[in-house]
């Protein structure tokens, strides 16, 4: 099972009510057979853009991130349940980034164009395309090396 993150913006309200909303969200995850790994409180702050939800325009929000593990097929249910919650302004589920193993290719990218691997590949592709690999041109079989009729 993969680890996901549920980022939620909650309506500004007292602490006890926040706990109730978080409990509601986490029970919806538990009901779908998920496990909660961590709940992060990113604090209350002004939203970068105003959002209207459930008929109210919000300009401030409490930011929370719940990292959890759940079967991928149940994510839609969790998301829709949060979506129906009146106290949640906005919610998104993101997959947690895996540790990416890659080499920095900046040095090759800074080379002049004919030395860049991607440009070399592009030139090769264009050459192949010009040759029309797999396609044959029509032969007139006139025995002449020019086209005898008027074009």
């Amino acid at each position: 099972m993969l680890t996901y993150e549920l980022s939620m913006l909650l309506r500004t309200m007292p602490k006890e009510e926040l706990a109730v909303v978080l409990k509601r969200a986490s029970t919806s995850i538990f009901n779908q057979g998920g496990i909660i790994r961590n709940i992060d409180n990113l604090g209350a702050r002004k939203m970068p853009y105003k959002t209207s939800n459930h008929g109210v325009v919000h300009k401030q929000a409490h930011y929370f991130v719940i990292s959890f593990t759940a079967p991928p097929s149940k994510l839609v249910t969790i998301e829709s349940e949060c979506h129906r919650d009146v106290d949640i302004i906005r919610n998104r589920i993101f997959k947690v980034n895996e540790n990416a193993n890659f080499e920095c290719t900046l040095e090759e990218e800074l080379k002049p164009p004919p030395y860049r691997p991607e440009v070399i590949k592009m030139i090769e592709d264009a050459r192949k395309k010009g040759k029309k690999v797999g396609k044959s041109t029509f032969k007139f079989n006139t025995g002449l090396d020019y086209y005898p009729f008027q074009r």
Partner: protein
Amino acid sequence: MMQNPIYFLLKQSRSTGPMLLPRLVHSSVTLQRNAESGGAETSDMPIEIENPFKKEKVVCILCKMKIEPDYKNVRLLSQFVSPFTGLMYGRHITGLCKTQQERVASEITKSQNAGMMPYYNKEPEFLEDPKLFNPDRPVRNHEY
């Protein structure tokens, strides 16, 4: 008429007497020394070493500092965003490698979507942050 700088220097040295010239050829002293010691001794043969003038591999700032771009780290992502349009700068300005540029771009979209980062501007509180690059002096010319 344009004058060859070296020719100019030589001419000047002839007229004004001895002066410092750029060392274009081995000076006669070193050539003499080489002639005396060369040939007979085998220990003086050139040895194979790694190229001492080889430059260090150029690495982008995120790979160098080993920073993983994350959608919750709005402050970091905002450094790659234009304060005028809220769009991410191109690779020729940010100086990131292709992979990191793509990762940062996707994290910015995620962050904007989750309501953590504005779409059309940069957060005013991050405007004073240190600049990682100068948008007026791109690494490569603009593609348009």
